[in-house]
């Protein structure tokens, strides 16, 4: 009993496909007869052809053969001499050959389409699974890696407090290095997570006033660098289409980099402006007169955790420019950098105009 139920369940879609084949032929026949009754002839052949092609495209080879047979019978019986008979005259053969050729051709195309479709679906499922895994990985990193680090930093600090007075200078220095490293690793993990988040979070696109955005960022940066002499030159900027909070991260990164790498200048100069791009694109740049970089290594600049300066020279994890590039790429734009050693650096980014 249960077994026959399963069989019925499997058969039903097949029956449905053949019923649809039958239906399309019946509709074609009805329409052809209706036209014939109004003395409008010559369309029957095309109507049946249409029914066959439709069936072949949507329902597959079996139903297509079924529709082909039905159509041929109906066409022969109703519309070719001798009428009301299934006799096939030699002159009718090309009609049936056309039916068969068309059905075969369309069934073949349909098979190719179905194959491509199933491949796409499979690839999509695989991607979804990989994405899920990645999310689980990021989650695990965020939760499980930070806990032991917190313990190292916490107990290390307690130990330092309790025994520091009894330690010699060298041991005290080692203690400090352990704690600094734990802290640094915490920073690296947080940065990496924030970076991976940019790829996963959906962008909220809207019209962004870059003038306003850059002003906000610069005002904040100015307060943080109040003890430095910095000359700011900020041109008027266009509006662009993008995710405001992501674009904010871009400018925060570029501006804080400019401030950081001009530290050794008595008078830092930072310029933010716009060069002429194409009709649909605005090219914005952030220029500084800081320590710059060797163009030889320009392709390393935007890599994750890639740094062109020593850690004791300029602090940082090396994720800022990677984040900038990732965000701009997600906006369909490009980034590039120009610079030379001790001559400053300029970062260009292209964004879609409104």
């Amino acid at each position, binding site marked *: 009993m249960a077994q026959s139920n399963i069989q019925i369940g499997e058969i039903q879609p097949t029956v449905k496909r053949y019923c649809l084949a039958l239906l399309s032929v019946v509709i074609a026949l009805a329409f052809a007869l209706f036209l014939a009754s109004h003395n409008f002839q010559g369309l029957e052949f095309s109507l049946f052809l249409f029914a066959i092609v439709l069936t072949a495209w949507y329902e597959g080879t079996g139903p297509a053969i079924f529709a082909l047979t039905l159509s041929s019978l109906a066409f022969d019986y109703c519309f070719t001499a001798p009428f009301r008979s299934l006799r096939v005259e030699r002159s009718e053969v090309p009609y049936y050959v056309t039916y068969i050729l068309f059905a075969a051709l369309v069934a073949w195309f349909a098979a190719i389409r179905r194959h491509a479709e199933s491949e796409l679906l499979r690839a999509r499922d695989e991607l979804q699974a990989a994405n899920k895994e990645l999310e689980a990985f*990021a*989650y695990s990193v965020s939760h*499980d890696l930070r806990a032991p680090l*917190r*313990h190292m930093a*916490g*107990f*290390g600090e307690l130990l330092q407090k309790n025994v520091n007075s009894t330690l010699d200078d060298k041991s005290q220095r080692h203690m400090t290095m352990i704690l600094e490293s*734990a802290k640094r690793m915490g920073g690296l993990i947080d940065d990496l997570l924030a970076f991976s988040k940019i790829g996963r979070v959906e962008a909220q696109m809207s019209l962004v006033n870059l003038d306003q955005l850059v002003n906000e960022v610069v005002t904040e940066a100015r307060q943080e660098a109040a003890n430095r002499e910095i000359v700011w030159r900020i041109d008027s900027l266009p509006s662009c289409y993008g995710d405001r909070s992501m674009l904010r991260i871009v400018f925060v990164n570029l501006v804080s980099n400019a401030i950081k790498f001009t530290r050794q200048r008595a008078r830092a100069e930072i310029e933010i402006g716009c060069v002429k791009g194409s009709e649909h694109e605005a090219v914005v740049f952030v220029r500084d007169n800081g320590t710059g970089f060797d163009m030889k290594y320009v392709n390393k600049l935007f890599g994750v955790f890639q740094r062109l300066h020593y850690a004791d020279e300029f602090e940082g994890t090396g994720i800022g420019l990677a984040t900038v590039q990732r965000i701009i790429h997600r906006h369909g734009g490009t980034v590039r950098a120009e610079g030379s050693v001790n001559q400053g650096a300029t970062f260009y980014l292209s964004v879609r105009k409104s």
Partner: protein
Amino acid sequence: MDNLGRILMVEDDPKDVELTMMALEGHNLANEVIVTRDGEEALDYLYRRGKYSTRSSEHPAVILLDLKLPKIDGLEVLRQVKTDNSLKIIPVVVLTSSNEEKDLVSSYKLGVNAYVVKPVDFHEFVNAIKELGVFWAVINAAPPASAWK
């Protein structure tokens, strides 16, 4: 009876328990701290089941809840507390390593009172715990006894 109210800590990692206790003690927060090691034990405590069936009926002043826990996880504990009429007035503070937006959103949807990401830096951690303890166990006026029904 101590009028400072108890703190119920739900935390599976003994090292985190020790660090949190030190942070609380370091700031002379004299509240009694009950530590439960997983979600099941926490619910046993709240519902006075199993080994907690003989505890006094007074509810904790605040629950410090980790999210990733053995057996029943933190979000499920939060859900049960916040859907139970007699428990939902207890302030619940999620104290976790996770700064995933997903957890944050789920926690707030379930009615969490505060969400704190445990900082890696020890000073920040101590300060966070201190402020939590001071706020929820000392400053915050607990619901009156008549509310426990």
